[in-house]
């Protein structure tokens, strides 16, 4: 269903009020001299407004910058990101963390109010209302009550018009042109309509444009002196002028306050967690390399540690045997080998950096890690080593054995 007309006959405040009073859902397009505006209504309240000459995103950007909700630099970065991701500005603002969603929606509301405020100045143009069951709008957007809008723009609605417009023929007040069945001033009892007083409108009057209106419910006629009507459907309603005034006065301070309370502590915490985990990772890597490599498999880790232990002991044994080759005896303690630089201090301590107990008994020595419950001793011996076993050399000379028949 569509309703259309001219602004010469109906001023916008009247049209808006009708829609509000009728709790209409649909889109009102207003075509002025230089622009076209589309206003979305949901149950009589404004949920969106778009202008042809300025995209929503451009307008939103201007609001953000004008009200210092975003710095120029940040805005440009967001634009870069938007171009890169091909996403919507609102989504990009939220995803990049530039603004909270609530802040974006507040800015959008301000933009809508500004646009509607400008629209109220229009005196020439055409309008058309497309009714429907639903309209699309930004999730979380707080609908704007027409009464609040008109109250906020009261000086413009009542004073500006005479200055700006070249005295177009003023239409008759709406209430006078309504069908007689519609009460003009339901002062007696606005809440209790008189169904008997309702008559369908007379649509045949030739001077009037064709207006099709559904039989109205008892409505409140807008009057400048009427107090602001609180829409019970809107939660946490603020008086629009006060809200706007707050936004105009201290937008950055409000944003700063919100930022500090919701956001500021998260980033340092995230950095702290990141640094802590990195430091812990390094500590585990350097101190417990086998646990770092195999944190979840105990058997493999133990096998790996034993393998490292074996390699470490093999190196110690190489040094011990080299010492024995020169001195014809085992070293009394492992520190002798570190003094000779055959082994480093770390190598003498074992692969797990645990101190080693070194015990020597003539030709046999034992290595045993201290401070461990496991019995992982390692024994080395010179016995049987034809280069290092003095007894073997001595016995060879003393033995008298018939030689084998050797071939050349």
């Amino acid at each position: 269903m569509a309703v259309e007309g001219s602004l010469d006959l109906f001023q916008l405040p009247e049209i808006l009020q009708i829609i509000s009073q009728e709790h209409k859902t649909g889109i009102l397009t207003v075509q002025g001299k230089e622009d076209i505006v589309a206003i979305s209504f949901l149950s009589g309240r404004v949920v969106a407004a778009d202008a042809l000459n300025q995209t929503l995103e451009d307008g939103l950007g201007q609001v953000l910058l004008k009200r210092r909700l975003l710095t120029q630099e940040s805005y440009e970065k967001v634009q870069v990101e938007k171009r890169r991701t091909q996403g919507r500005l609102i989504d990009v603002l939220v995803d990049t963390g530039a603004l909270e969603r609530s802040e974006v929606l507040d800015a959008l509301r301000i933009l809508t109010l500004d646009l509607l405020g400008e629209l109220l100045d229009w005196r020439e143009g055409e309008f058309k209302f497309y009714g429907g069951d639903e309209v699309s709008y930004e999730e979380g957007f707080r609908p704007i009550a027409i009464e609040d809008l008109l109250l906020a723009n009261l000086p413009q609605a009542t004073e500006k018009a005479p200055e700006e417009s070249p005295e177009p023929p003023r239409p008759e007040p709406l209430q006078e042109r309504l069908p007689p069945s519609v009460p003009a001033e339901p002062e007696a009892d606005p809440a209790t309509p008189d169904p008997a007083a309702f008559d369908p409108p007379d649509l045949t009057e030739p001077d009037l444009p064709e207006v099709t209106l559904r039989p109205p419910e008892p409505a409140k006629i807008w009057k400048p002196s009427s107090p602001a009507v609180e829409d019970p459907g809107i939660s946490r309603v603020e008086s629009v002028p006060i809200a706007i005034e707050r936004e105009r006065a201290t937008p950055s301070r409000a944003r700063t306050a919100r930022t500090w309370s919701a956001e500021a502590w998260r980033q340092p915490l995230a950095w702290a967690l990141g640094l802590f985990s990195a430091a812990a990772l390094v500590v585990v890597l350097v101190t417990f390399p086998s646990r770092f490599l195999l944190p979840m498999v105990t058997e493999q880790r133990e096998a790996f540690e034993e393998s490292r232990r074996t390699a470490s002991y093999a190196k110690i044994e190489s040094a011990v045997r080299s010492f024995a080759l020169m001195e014809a005896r085992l070293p009394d303690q492992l520190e002798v080998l570190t003094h000779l630089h055959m082994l480093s201090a770390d190598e003498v301590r074992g692969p797990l950096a645990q101190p080693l107990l070194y015990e020597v008994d003539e030709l046999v020595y034992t290595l045993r890690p201290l401070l461990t419950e496991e019995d992982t001793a390692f024994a080395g011996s010179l016995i049987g080593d034809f280069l290092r076993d003095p007894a073997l050399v001595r016995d060879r000379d003393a033995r008298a054995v018939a030689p084998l028949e050797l071939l050349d």
Partner: protein
Amino acid sequence: MSSPSPALARAPLRTRAVRLGAGLVAVLGLVGLGSLPALPLRAQTPAAGEAALSSLSPSGGLPDKIPLSPGVERDLSQIYEQWIQWQGAFFRDQPDLSEQLVSGLLGNTRQLGLQRLSGLSIGASVRAVEAAERDADFAKATWALDAAERLDPGRPETAFARARIRLSEGRRAAALWSELDGLRRTFSAFPGSSLAGADLALWALFSLLASAGLFVALQMAVKGRLLFADLETMIGRTVSLPSPVLRFLALLLLLWPLLLPTGPLWLLLYWSALLFAHSSLSERVVLSALWALVALSPVAADHVRRRADFALSPAMRGVESLVEGRLHGQLFQDLEQLGTLMPEDPAVIQLMADLHRGLGQWDLALELYRRVVEVEPGNAWALIDIGGYYFFKRDYKNARSYYEEATVQQPNNVVAYYNLSQAFSEDRFLLDDAAAALRRAQEIDAGLVSQLQQETARQRVVTFDGGIARAPEIREKLALRLADPEPDPDLDERARDRAGGSEGSVASPTNGEAPMSGHPTAKAAAPLPFGQVPGALGAALLALLFTQLRPRNVPVGPRSGWTPYRDALVPGLASVREGRGGHAWVGLLIPTALLTLPLIERLAYPLFPIYSATGSALWIVAGVGLIVFFGARIALARLG
């Protein structure tokens, strides 16, 4: 103008509860399954290896101890005496005598069929360093080091000792060069080469894991606030609580893995799953690679460990010593270990036969060659060596029969025909046959025949170390044998007897038994290492579940307000902010690898050669690498 609402906001309560429940199950699975011991799957022994091990008749088998004839013992005593004399020459500062003694030592070694004296070479290196550091006698140190190099050319200990001597002289550049030479030699000498290879593999693994962990830490630093907000929202939608309580619970939910053993590592794995939802495509690829690394690192580490254990086993040490011709004090003990492990393997028996032949113990060698031929009638080299025994015993008839058999088994064996011609030529009635055999040899390879004629001028026939040539085959079988989790009880008993009889003559861990490194009675090989796969899968599952609650897949954040120089000095930071996962990981991997390089011995296996403890070369390489890396980053920042 309607906007998409988060799935969580629209999902009915039951679906959210199911998702949260599934997430909890995934988390528990990540903890529980990953902590279970790995499945004790047996390592499969290939059929070929099993067939080879059991192919000999029970009557065959190597003796427990390697018998040494008096002649061999005399030669070994002489080597020992000459070593004592060399030390005397060292203390008296007699380089000429040292030269003579070294020549004598090498001559005696060749008498035993070997070429190098590794133990004495290390001893000479130790004396050289002693002379330089204690007495500042660099001339003596130099000729002692020369002696060490002659006794066993290419030994890494010699190069490391030279590095220490040059450091004592104050020649730092030369010392660094020698240390690099030592590292190079380590990679080519046994067992250092195996351990160094293990170190490199583990270093790569450590670097990959550490850099991946730092990547997750960096992601948390950059995107953690969004994750925190998500967790708060999730908890807030489930239960209605005051904001401070929500924040506390969110923090708890983020940090609970610290309660687990090795908590920091679990924490990073857990965060990688949660941060998956806030990651770009390339970052998700990196995180997936991290999970794959976690799952596969035990497999890689176990493979490296087995190779290292294998290289350190006395049996393997004995094989490699024979292959390289190294005589050292433990050689015979190590080969006895090999005989204990694989007493009936024909390749091992042939190797032992070669050893005895080299020692001049032909009778023992013949007996072992015959055992080989019983099992492997087609083994031409064993037949040739048996023929050589008879040839040297002047039993030319038997020599001919074995050489002829060798030509039948391997019709293209030049040595068989050559030796046959020599055997024929000993009988003046068979000169035509000798010529025919020689012609046949020349038809196959004339060049080789000329070479053989020159090299065997004195002994006339060629013998060949066919057993030593089968070292690769022996290594494979030995690796399988050592990896067998259920050792042969008979072998176990023999090993115990041996270890008990020689009073611990072999280096071994003595935890109440007589096991030794690599011996089958040692701790059984660990089961197949798949124990970290559940943990990795749990992380992946948790990531997928959590991602459903946050379907958006966009990178976070334009470049920060940091200056380019600060971005250059913190690798990966700018890339994480821009959602470039691959760049970030590579940026972290390079400095991580460089920083862990000098710690390689601490993290993995010690490099085997003694005197390799300075590690200054690795620190210098790391330092230069870091300077180049960060210098390049800063230069690019200045240009960009």
